[in-house]
């Protein structure tokens, strides 16, 4: 583990803990956000037969860097009628909530912030902070659009947490573990051991699991998409109705915090889908490092596979955003409560029956 390694070098537990807890931010979230914002603009442009940003750097590669410099230089504007304390604190809370998720995500077998046994439930729990932060931002802005956006967002996240949790419960029931590390280790070596293809089960059980797992994967992908407020579930910040929802009044770095949190969340939920159903950091077909005898290569390969899977699901999110129109509020709630939740209950029951075989 990285922590033990650092502890042996520096000899200070506080320093090494600090470095380990900062690693995901600097190694992962910031570069990812830079890349993903650019990718979103390019993907959207190409899907609509446009070119997207082209001026800064080769084919606009440096566009996000320029944007960030602009955001850093902006005046920190706090509207007069806002609730100053809460207004300034809300972006921090939202970002802290989405950053805390990364503490339990196994990037590779040696790079995991904390191997807590309750990893997956912990992730569900800390997203509660994001909801509180969004409500805080919406209320403190003292703006009816912000408040409406925050209300919609909170209602949506709370509703869609239920199908997510039910599918997670199914997986917990099948595998008997809540630790994301153990869950990744269970789906080892080849792609037919991934949970989407029945996991480590064998024989008839495996064949019966496959359809359930595919539906479950779809349900959890849809509901996590709704939890991060992405199109087609972006009614909390629907531009054509609510300006931009709970962050209408924010500008400069505070807006950038919301933006960063949104992109960090996008990767986090993609990573959760990848860990639960697609083997986490496991390679689909053996490791090059094991084959040629260089065992230090394996964690690097695992990091590559994990990032590749995560980025693929992020790409699917972007793809959906530029393909599907937005839901109406009542449709959104009906879809969750009348379809997703009953489906996930049926999956839970059937998986329980099959696991008795």
């Amino acid at each position: 583990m990285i922590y033990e390694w650092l502890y042996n070098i520096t000899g200070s537990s506080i320093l090494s803990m600090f470095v380990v807890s900062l690693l995901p931010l600097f190694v992962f979230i910031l570069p990812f956000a830079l890349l993903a914002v650019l990718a979103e603009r390019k993907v959207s442009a190409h899907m609509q037969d446009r070119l997207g940003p082209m001026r800064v750097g080769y084919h606009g590669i440096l566009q996000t860097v320029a944007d960030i410099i602009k955001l850093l230089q902006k005046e920190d504007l706090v509207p007069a009628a806002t609730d100053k304390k809460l207004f300034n604190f809300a972006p921090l809370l939202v970002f802290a909530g989405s950053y805390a998720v990364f503490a339990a995500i196994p990037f590779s077998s040696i790079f995991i912030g904390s191997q807590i046994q309750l990893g997956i439930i912990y992730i569900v729990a800390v997203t509660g902070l994001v909801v509180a932060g969004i409500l805080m931002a919406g209320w403190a802005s003292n703006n009816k659009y912000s408040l409406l956006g925050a209300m919609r967002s909170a209602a949506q996240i709370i509703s869609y947490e239920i199908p997510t949790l039910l599918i997670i419960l199914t997986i917990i029931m099948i595998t008997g573990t809540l630790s994301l590390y153990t869950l990744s280790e269970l789906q080892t070596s080849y792609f037919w051991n991934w949970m989407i293809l029945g996991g480590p089960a064998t024989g008839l059980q495996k064949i019966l699991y496959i359809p359930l797992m595919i539906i479950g994967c779809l349900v959890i992908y849809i509901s996590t998409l709704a939890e991060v407020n992405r199109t087609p579930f972006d009614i909390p910040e629907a531009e054509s109705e609510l300006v931009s929802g709970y962050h209408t009044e924010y500008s400069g770095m505070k807006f950038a915090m919301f933006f960063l949190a949104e992109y960090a969340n996008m990767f986090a939920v993609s990573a959760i889908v990848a860990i639960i159903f697609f083997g986490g950091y496991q390679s689909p077909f053996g490791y090059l490092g094991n084959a040629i005898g260089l065992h230090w290569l394996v964690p690097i390969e695992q990091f590559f596979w994990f990032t590749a899977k995560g980025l693929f699901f992020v790409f699917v999110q972007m793809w959906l955003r530029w393909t599907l129109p937005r839901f109406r509020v009542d449709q959104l709630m009906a879809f969750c409560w009348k379809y997703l939740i009953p489906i996930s209950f049926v999956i839970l029951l059937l998986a329980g029956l099959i696991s008795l075989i």
Partner: protein
Amino acid sequence: MEIYDIIFYLFAAITLLSAFFVVTSRNIVHAAFYLLFTFFGVTGIYVLLGADFVAIVQLIVYVGGILILLIFGVMITNKITQVDIKTGTVHTLPAAIGVGLFTGIVGAVILNTEWRIVDSPMPVATLSTLGEMLLTEYVLIFELLGILLLVALIGAASMARK
């Protein structure tokens, strides 16, 4: 000072300070948000005591559920309609007597109890032990609680329909 001590005092300070602000804050929305930090601090202390499952459940139920509902309710009633709901102080004397008595009892218990101080072993995951206990020794209580919650749910749904 071990790092665990620092973390403990940090969480204790968060809990106590925010709890103090919850009761003294004049703005009811601020009070609700301070409550968030109280719950968060208590969660941290649970983690340090090795009760990982209780900590996570505290976070899910109180922060993710009850507090969000509370803020929802408070937000709809306040500021939007230009009616400022302020917290005030009433019945100072009976309250003072009650709080004084309670503090006295708690203080007496703390001072007069012989605390057993032992080095706790490295905390292990409590989840599987908890699960087994719930489904063997305490199964009747567990099922009764389930029925109680179900009754409450049905009641809430039938009230909402009217």
